[in-house]
C-alpha cells in the first residue's frame, strides 16, 4: 500500500501505543482524548474547539470517504494536534472527496498513527482519566509542549468579520466557532458579526449574542460575559458555553467522572419527557449546587445526570453543553436556534 513508518503515542503516565504513521512526519504533544463518533472525522478534525488535542477515534475504520472540500468543513484546516486510529484506508471512495485524509493531515503538518488498539486506549483514558501525551513519528525529535493559554487566540478571528444581512444582528464571540454554526444563523436571515474572543461586549451593538465553548479554561471570559448578561439582550450558548455563563454568574464547575466524547450522548430537557441525542465533547460540567437562585437546569445527561444546559429564569439567557448540530440534525435542533432568533427579533421590537 505504502511504506510503513512506525510511530508511537506516549501518554503522560508512560503508557505507549505503537503503530504506523500516516500523517505528517514529526512529533507533537497535546491533551489525549477519544471520540466514539463512527462518522464525521473531517468535521471533528477541523473543529476549532479540538485544537490542542490529540484525538483517538474508537471507530476503527477511518479515511473511507476521504476529505470533502474544505469549505464544507468546520474551519479551514486541521485543528487537532494529532490523530490516532486503528485502521486507515488510504484508498478512499466518495464523489465529494477531494483528497485523502493522509494528504490533508500532511498538508496541515499534523502527525497521525494507525494500527493502534483505540478501544484499549479509550478504556485506559476512561479508567485513568484523560491526560497529555505525544505522538512521535520515527526519526523525529521530542515535540514542543502545547501552550493552552494561546488556543483561544489561535482559533479566533483577529478582526470582526461581518456575514450576511438581515433585520437583526447576532454577535458571535469567537472562541472557536464552527462554520456550521455561522451557516445555520445565516440561513435564518440575520446579520452575523463574528467578534475576536477578547472583544469588549459592552462596546458592541447587537440584538442577540451567541457564545460557543472554548478549547480550554473559559475563566478569562467570565467578566466580559457577566456584563453582557446584564445588558438583557438574548444570549444563546452552545458547545460548552453553559460553563462560560455559569462562571460569569459565580457558578462553579467540576470535572466529570467520565468525559462525554461522542455523537450519541442522551440528554433530557428537565421536567419534560423530551429527550435528545446530542454530540458532546467535554470533560467538565457545572456543579449544580453552585447555580445562583435565578438560574435553573435546562438539560441534563440521561446517563450520569450531569448538567448539559442551563438558563436564567427570566429573559432569554441560556446555553447548552452539547452541540445542537444545526446542519446534521435539523429535525431535533432547529427549534433551539429558531427560539433564539425569535427572542432577538422580539427584543428589537
Amino acid at each position, binding site marked *: 500500500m505504502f511504506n510503513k513508518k512506525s510511530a508511537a503515542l506516549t501518554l503522560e503516565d508512560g503508557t505507549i501505543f505503537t503503530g504506523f504513521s500516516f500523517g505528517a512526519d514529526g512529533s507533537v504533544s497535546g491533551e489525549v482524548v477519544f471520540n466514539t463518533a463512527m462518522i464525521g472525522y473531517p468535521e471533528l478534525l477541523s473543529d476549532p474547539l479540538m485544537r490542542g488535542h490529540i484525538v483517538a477515534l474508537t*471507530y476503527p*475504520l477511518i479515511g*473511507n470517504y476521504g476529505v470533502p472540500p474544505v469549505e464544507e468543513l468546520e474551519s479551514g484546516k486541521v485543528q487537532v494536534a494529532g490523530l490516532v486510529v*486503528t485502521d486507515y484506508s488510504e484508498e478512499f471512495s466518495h464523489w*465529494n472527496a477531494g483528497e485523502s485524509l493522509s494528504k490533508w493531515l500532511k498538508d496541515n503538518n499534523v502527525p497521525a498513527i494507525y494500527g493502534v488498539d483505540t478501544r484499549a486506549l479509550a478504556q485506559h483514558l476512561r479508567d485513568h482519566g484523560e491526560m497529555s501525551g505525544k505522538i512521535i513519528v520515527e526519526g523525529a525529535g521530542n515535540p514542543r509542549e502545547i501552550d493552552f493559554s494561546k488556543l483561544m487566540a489561535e482559533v479566533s478571528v483577529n478582526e470582526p468579520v461581518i456575514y450576511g444581512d438581515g433585520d437583526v444582528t447576532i454577535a458571535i464571540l469567537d472562541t472557536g466557532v464552527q462554520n456550521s454554526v455561522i451557516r445555520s444563523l445565516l440561513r435564518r436571515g440575520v446579520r452575523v458579526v463574528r467578534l475576536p474572543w477578547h472583544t469588549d461586549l459592552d462596546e458592541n451593538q447587537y440584538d442577540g449574542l451567541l457564545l460557543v465553548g472554548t478549547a480550554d479554561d473559559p475563566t478569562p471570559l467570565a467578566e466580559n460575559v457577566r456584563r453582557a448578561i446584564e445588558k438583557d439582550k438574548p444570549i444563546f450558548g452552545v458547545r460548552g458555553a453553559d460553563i462560560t455563563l455559569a462562571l460569569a454568574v459565580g457558578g462553579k464547575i467540576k470535572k466529570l467522572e467520565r468525559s462525554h466524547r461522542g455523537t450519541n450522548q442522551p440528554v433530557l430537557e428537565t421536567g419534560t*419527557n423530551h429527550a435528545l441525542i446530542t454530540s458532546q465533547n467535554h470533560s467538565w460540567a457545572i456543579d449544580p449546587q453552585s447555580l445562583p437562585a435565578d438560574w435553573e437546569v435546562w438539560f441534563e445527561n440521561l446517563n450520569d445526570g450531569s448538567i448539559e444546559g442551563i438558563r436564567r429564569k427570566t429573559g432569554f439567557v441560556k446555553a447548552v453543553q452539547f452541540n445542537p448540530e444545526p*446542519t446534521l440534525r435539523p429535525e431535533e435542533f432547529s427549534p433551539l436556534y429558531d427560539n433564539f432568533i425569535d427572542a432577538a427579533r422580539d427584543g428589537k421590537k
Partner: protein
Amino acid sequence: MLLAMEKNKIKKVVLLGSGALKIGEAGEFDYSGSQALKALKEEGIATVLINPNIATIQTSENIADRVYFLPVTPEYVEKVIARERPDGILLAFGGQTALNCGVALFKSGILEKYDVQVLGTPVQSIIDTEDRDIFVKKLDQIGVKTIKSKAVTTVEDAKTVAAELGYPIIIRPAFTLGGLGSGFANDEAELDVLARKAFTYSPQILVEKSLKGWKEIEYEVMRDRYDNCITVCNMENFDPLGIHTGESIVVAPVQTLSATEAAKLRALAIRIIRHVGIVGECNVQYALDPQSEEYVVIEVNARLSRSSALASKATGYPLAFVAAKLALGYGLHELKNSVTKTTTACFEPTLDYVVCKIPRWDLGKFKGVSRELGSSMKSVGEVMAIGRNFEEAMQKGLRMIGQGMHGFVANKELIVSDLDEALNRPTDKRVFQLANAFKAGYSVDRIFELTKIDRWFLHKLQNIIRLDNQLGRFDKLEDVPDALLLEAKQRGFSDFQIAREVLKPCDTDMEREVAQVRAHRKARGITPFIKRIDTVAGEYPADTNYLYVTYNGISHDVDFPRDDRSVVVLGSGAYRIGSSVEFDWCSVNAANTIRKSGLRSIMINYNPETVSTDYDMSDRLYFDELTLERVLDITDLEVPRGVIVSMGGQIPNNLALRLEANHVPILGTSAANIDRAEDRHKFSSMCDELGIDQPRWKELSSLEDIYQFAEDVGFPLLIRPSYVLSGAAMNVVSNRSELEHFLTLATNVSKQHPVVVTEYLTHAKEIEIDAVARDGEVLIYAISEHVEYAGVHSGDATMVFPPQKMYVETMRRVKKIAREVAKGLEITGPFNMQLMAKNNDIKVIECNLRASRSFPFVSKVLKVNFIELATRVMLGESVEIPHKSAFELDYVGIKAPQFSFSRLQKADPVLGVEMASTGEVGCLGDDYSEAILKSMISVGYAIPKKNILLSTGDAHSKTDMLSAAKALQDRGYTLFATKGTADFLAANGVTAEVLQWPDSPEKPNTLDFIKERKIDLVINIPKNLSAAELNNDYTIRRSAIDFNVPLITNPRLASAFIHAFCKLGPDDIKIKAWDEY
C-alpha cells in the same frame, strides 16, 4: 400518570408468531418474539402466544404463559381471542405473517368486537406503510422522496406505466415480504410474465423505475409515545441496489457515506417515523445515488424485521425488547441500556468494530432453480461476522457460511467460462468471482464497472489478494516475517489459508499443515484477543458477556477464571436446509441447563437470527466462528470443564474427533464413538456384530466393485457421503448411467469421508427414535413414524408422535435396537436413529449421536425436556429417569414441513432424498385427523372449497390414492384429472373430468385451470424419484406453486390430508392451548 393507567389496564396480551421458517421469514422472529415476551413478563403481564412453530424458543415453557400451536390466520386467532379475551395484541414481532393477520383482524372488526387494543404502532400506520399508494402520498406530505412508481391493479396498466417510466423497471407486489413475486423487466415481454405472476400474490402491484447500481442503505429507528426518536443502527449493502437486501452482503455501520449523507438519511428516517406515527421500531430502506446526495426511500417496515434482528446483534441494542416496552407506554428515557445496565436505553449505539452479514444459500438442493440473484429473496439463512477491519469481518463471514470456503482466498477455484458475465450477473457465488477477477489481473475500476460494488469495498478485498500473494512467496513458515503473519491474521486469514498459501500441501487432508501454522504462530506470540460488544465503544464500563475474537487489539476485555466451572456449547451456525431453529432450541436449552446446574455456560455461534446469540441466554457469548481454529482459540483461553458438541447439529458434531485430538474435553459420548456412528463402515460393522439389520451397502473403493454391488442388490440405490446432514449430495439412482453421474458428484463433496452406496427399499415405513442415554443405558425415548414412505427425506416428512399406525411389535423391536446401539456406542447424551420397517423387517438407516431435528417436537409433545435431561447426564449429574411414556398420551402431535418453493423460481417442487423444506410446524390434536389438519393449515394449506386436480402417478400410487378420491367424491368435491388418472378412477367408480396435459393444445387444459385458479388443490404424484421427470408433471407442479394453488406431491400425505378434511369440518378443530393437552 397516563402511563400507570395504561399499564394497569393491560393485563393480558396476545402475541402473534410467524409460523414455520420460510425464505424471507426465518429465525429472526423467534428472537424478536422471545424478547417481547420477556419484556411483557417483566411487567407482570400475562402472555398468550399463537405460533405453530414448535421448534422455537418462544414456544417453550416459561416464556409465554400460554402457547397455542395453531395457524397464525385470522380465523384461528379470532377463536383464540374469543377464548382468552386479552386486553392487548402485539403484531410487530411475528414478521409479515403476524402483521397481515393483524391488519385483517382489524379490518374485519374482530379486534374492536373483543375490545382488544393494538399495542405499539397503530394499525393505520401499518396500513399506511404497506399500501404503496398511501405510502407514497404519506411521504410526499413531508417532502420525502420515494421511488418514482405507480401502483396498478391490471397487467395492462402495468404496461402503460412501464412505458411512461422507461425500462428497465422493477415490479413489486404490495403486502408481501422478502420481495416475493418481484423482479426486473427489461422489456414489455418480460414485464407481461412478471406482472401476471405478481398478481397471484397481491391484488396490487407496483411498477417502478429501476435504480440498479445505487447504494442501498438501511436505518433502524425507534420512537416512543413522547415522540423521542433514536436511530439504533445504519447499514450499507455491499451489493448495490438490484439485489434484495436479504440476498446482499450487508455491512454495519455504513462505510462509504460522508457525515452529511449519513445525517441526512438519519434525519429523514426520524421525520418518517414521526409522520407515520410508529410507536416502537421501524426500518427504512434507502437508495442513494453514488454520485450525489440524491436519495429515494425504497420502503418502510413498520415492524421488527430481519434487518432489525441483525441491527440488534450488530450493536448489542435489544431492539425487540425495547420495542415491546415502548408498546406498553414507556419512554425511551425511562428504560435502561441492558448492556451497560447503568446508562439509558435512550441513546444511539456506537460500534468500535464492523460487522458483515452474508447470506447462506442452498440453491444446489433444488432441481432447476435459477442461481441468479435479484429482487426476490432465495437465501435460507445468514451469518454475521465481527471484525475490527473489513477484511477480518469479511473473511470470517465467508468461512461461516459453510459452503466449503476458507475465506476470500485460498479456496478451491470456481471455474467459469465468462468471468465478466459472472461479475455482471450476480449469483450466490459472485463474491468468490471477485477474487478470481483480481487474480486474473482485473483492476478495481474494471470490477467496479462490472459489479457497481463501491470501490472502497473492492480496495479492501484487493488488500486480501495482496497479502495472499505475499504469503505465497514463502515456502516455510519460519521464513514468513512475523509482521506479515500478524497482518494476515489481522486481515482475517485462517491458519488453513496460511497453510495452503505457504506450505502448499498437495494432499486434501491438511490437518497436519494447519496444526503446524497454529503451533508456529503461537510460538511467535501471534494469538487473538477477546473484545466486548458494549454499545458504547468503551466510553462507559460495561459488564457485558457479548464477545468476539480479533487479532486487531492488544488486550482482552475479559478475564478467564479457569475455575473448571464453565461449559462450552457449540451452536449450529447458519440456518440452512436441514439445520435450523431446532438446533438453536437444543443449544439454548443446553445452556439453560448448564446455568441451572450452577455452572457457567459459554455459547459459541454466529447466526444473527437465533436466540442462542442473544447475550442474555448464556454467561458468555462468543459471536464467532465454529471452526476448529476458533474453538481452540477460545478453549485455550477459557479452559472450560468441557465442550458440548451434540446440540448444534452437524457442524459441532464434525469437530468432535479433532477437538479431542487437541485435548479438549468432550462432554457426553466420546469422540471415538461419535465417529463410529458417523463412519458408515464402522457403524455397519458394529450393527453386524450386534445382529442389527441394515440395508445392504458398499463403500466406494473401485467403480467395478460398485457396479458388481448394483447387480447383486438391484436398483434403486441410494448414494451418499459419510458425515452429512440433510442429504447433501445424496441421491437415489435407478440405472447405471445415473449411478455414474452421482458417484462423481458425491465424491466431490467430501474427499475425507468416503462415498457409500446403499440398497434402497421402496414402500417401506420410516420410523425415528429420539432418545437420551447414560453410559449406554437408554433413559428416555420417543418413537415417531412418518406419514410418507421411506424415500422422502426425514426433514421433509410429516412426522407423527406418538405413532398411530404402528404395530406394538414394531415399536418393541425399535426400542430394543436403540438399546443395543446405545450400549454398543456407550452413548451418554442425546441420539437419534432412523429406521425402515417393511413387513416385519426393521433395518437401521442411520444413527446420529447428537440431538436431532425432532428433539424439540418430541420434548414438547411428551412434555419432557429431552435436552435438559441429556445435558444433565453429560454434566455427570444424577438424574431421575422420567416415567412418562408415549403410550399414556391421549393426543397426537404432528410435525409438518414448510416449503418455500414459491421463492425459488423454476425449482421443481418435488420431494426426494435431498431435503428441501425450510421450516416446520408441530401441532397437537385430539386425534390424528385433527392434528393433520392443524399442521397442514399451519404450513399454508387450506381446506379446498370445490375443485381438486388429481394426477396420481404410477399404478401403485394410483391405488394408494383411490380411497381418498372416493372420499372426495362422497363429500361432493368436483374432481379433475389427467387422462390416465381419470381412466383409473372411472374404472373404480369415481368420476373425474379430464383435463389435458400442459403440452397439449387441447382444451380444457390443466395449465389454464391452474392459471385461472379454478383449482383449489393440486395432487400431482411424480412417477418415480429419478431426475428424469416428465416435463408435463413438472409444469403442473411449478404452475401450482407460481399461481399459489396448494400442491401435494406425495400419495400418502395427500390421502392423510384428504381423509382428514373429509372427516372433520373447520368447526371440529379445537382451540386448545398446549397446557390443556
